[in-house]
């Protein structure tokens, strides 16, 4: 089984993680990076606009959003506008799909399967919504997905609402679907568990499910990063 290097970045600004993702993907394409990677991160509130962003999805101008303390990024991923905010678990798998399956729909469905499996750890019955990529529970949206593929190496990924307050979603029409109710693991789990504990459990559940769905062995072993011919990418 191939390894899946887990990089847990903690809280990091969107732009910094974006640079890291792009650098890792480039190395994965060139072969300088010899294993798949999963970046896990939590972003300060930020609005990102995918390639499918409709003007109606962004009712406020970028300047008005920035006046409310939000950064705005246009990025190369698919999909419409979305929001990241603290307490949302964002995952960016950098996978070489040559080693898995060269099929973007398969990959999107796999990411959904990862999140659906992870949510079972909290007894949250999640499902797909045909035609609307993402993960849903009881008609509410709990996770969003948007990806980019560069020579079959993946960038961008998923955002799972865990303990975030979902406030940022008031300022965009998430994924261009108006009237969507967003929800989070904390809301659906209905437990008054310690937030930090819920956060850590969610992270573990997602890592485990990534490994099973993609048939990879997740590891946080730093040794993994010493084998590629290039320097470890974590140096900033």
């Amino acid at each position, binding site marked *: 089984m191939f390894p899946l290097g887990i990089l847990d970045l903690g809280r990091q600004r969107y732009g910094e993680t974006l640079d890291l993702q792009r650098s890792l993907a480039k190395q994965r394409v060139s072969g300088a990076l010899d294993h798949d990677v999963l970046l896990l991160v939590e972003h300060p509130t930020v609005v990102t606009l995918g390639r499918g962003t409709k003007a109606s999805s962004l*009712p406020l101008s970028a300047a008005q959003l920035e006046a409310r303390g939000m950064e705005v990024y246009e990025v*190369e991923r*698919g999909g419409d506008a979305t929001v990241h905010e603290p307490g949302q678990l964002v995952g960016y798998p950098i996978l070489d799909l040559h080693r898995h399956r060269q099929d973007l729909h398969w990959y999107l469905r796999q990411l959904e399967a990862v999140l659906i499996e992870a949510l079972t750890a909290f007894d949250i019955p999640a499902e797909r919504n045909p035609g609307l990529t993402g993960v849903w529970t009881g008609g509410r949206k709990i996770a969003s997905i948007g990806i980019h593929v560069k020579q079959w190496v993946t960038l961008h990924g998923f955002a799972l609402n865990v303990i975030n307050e979902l406030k940022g979603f*008031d300022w965009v029409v998430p994924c261009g679907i108006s009237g969507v109710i967003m929800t989070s693991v904390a809301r659906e789990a209905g437990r008054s568990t310690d937030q930090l504990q819920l956060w850590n459990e969610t992270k573990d559940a997602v890592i485990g499910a990534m490994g099973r769905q993609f048939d990879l062995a997740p590891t946080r072993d730093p040794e993994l990063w010493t084998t590629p011919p290039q320097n470890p990418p974590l140096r900033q």
Partner: protein
Amino acid sequence: MATKILMEALSPTMEEGRLVEWKKKEGDAVALGDVLAEVETDKAVMEIVARSAGTLLKQIAAAGATVPVSQLVGWIGQPGEALADGAPAPTAADASGPVVSAAPPPGTAASPKAAATPASDPGSSRVKASPLARKIAADQGLNLASVAGSGPEGRIIKRDLDAVNAARPASAPSRPSAGPSWSVSPAGPGLGYTDVPLTQIRKTIAKRLAQSIGPIPTFYLTTEVDMERMWEARASLNAAGEDQSKISFNDIIMKALATALIEHPACNAWWQDDHIRYWNDVHISMAVAIPDGLITPVIRHADRKSLRQIGAEAKELAGRARNRKLMPEEYTGGTFSISNLGMFDIDEFTAVINPPEAGILAVGRIAERPAVVDGAIAIRRRLRLTMSCDHRVIDGATGAAFLKTLKLFLENPLALVW
């Protein structure tokens, strides 16, 4: 011989893809492996990569077009190479075929012509701009054609518009120095506001609260403001400008209110049944008692006017209001209201919201009251302010934060001078 660029299948189940954008212009040199274009399907974006080197001779599918898998989207070849006499005429598909051009920009030929001369035609190139840049330009009424792009292939990105804005002279509407004449047009469509669709939670709040308490679910927030410092500030201002009209507390509160609204745009809004309209500018409706009722003349752009301007205008409008000489545009289009009953020795009261505005401030009298200052009881001049909030627009914490800013301005006159 020229090579076809085809819409690639990003998945066996994919039937069509949307060509998001071209990364190479017609006439650009292309190396093997260069990214030619981005294609989107579902929530995935993939790059189309050049499978041969040469020159991008022709873009057949326009950016934004949806193209079936394996359909021709462009040609790579040698400059000058004629495409029409190749085996398959590339133009057959685009004249009648299923390639749908998304919103052909003005100035471009409606349907791509047969590419007999593949040399690039700089005159017809459409303005390339990012979605964000387009949105900003639309908001600001900028013509993108007049902006130089610094992004890839001259694409106009947000940075370029920022540069344009920075270079624009002071004609920009942001806090110009107060002049005596304000050519302010009445509120109407196309003016400075943002309409925000109702989120699910806003819809639910609106429905449930309105069921409970009449058509406008109102709640009230009261705060007491220490006016000692403002009292002194006003006294010295009036002493310094002896020959000018006196500044009243009402003028000061109006100015502070307008300035606080600029900082809390969430309270400077109209309820519009299916959306909320957040105004960029502040126009204060001022309740004026008239013999058989009341009317609310509007002080436009109160945040940008000096205290004396506000005072003169308020006096003039109130005078004409009492004589029933106001024009309709002078008492409509306010974004927030103020009502002052301090002159009747009212300590505090609740005012009724002036729809579609989302809030009104009720101003009581300034009274000497015992207050605790630095741990001791002192006699201080105090003012009670009560804000009525339309809960469909303003939540408790939102209104409270706004009121706190207003209190800060009134208790610290310098904060208003900024």
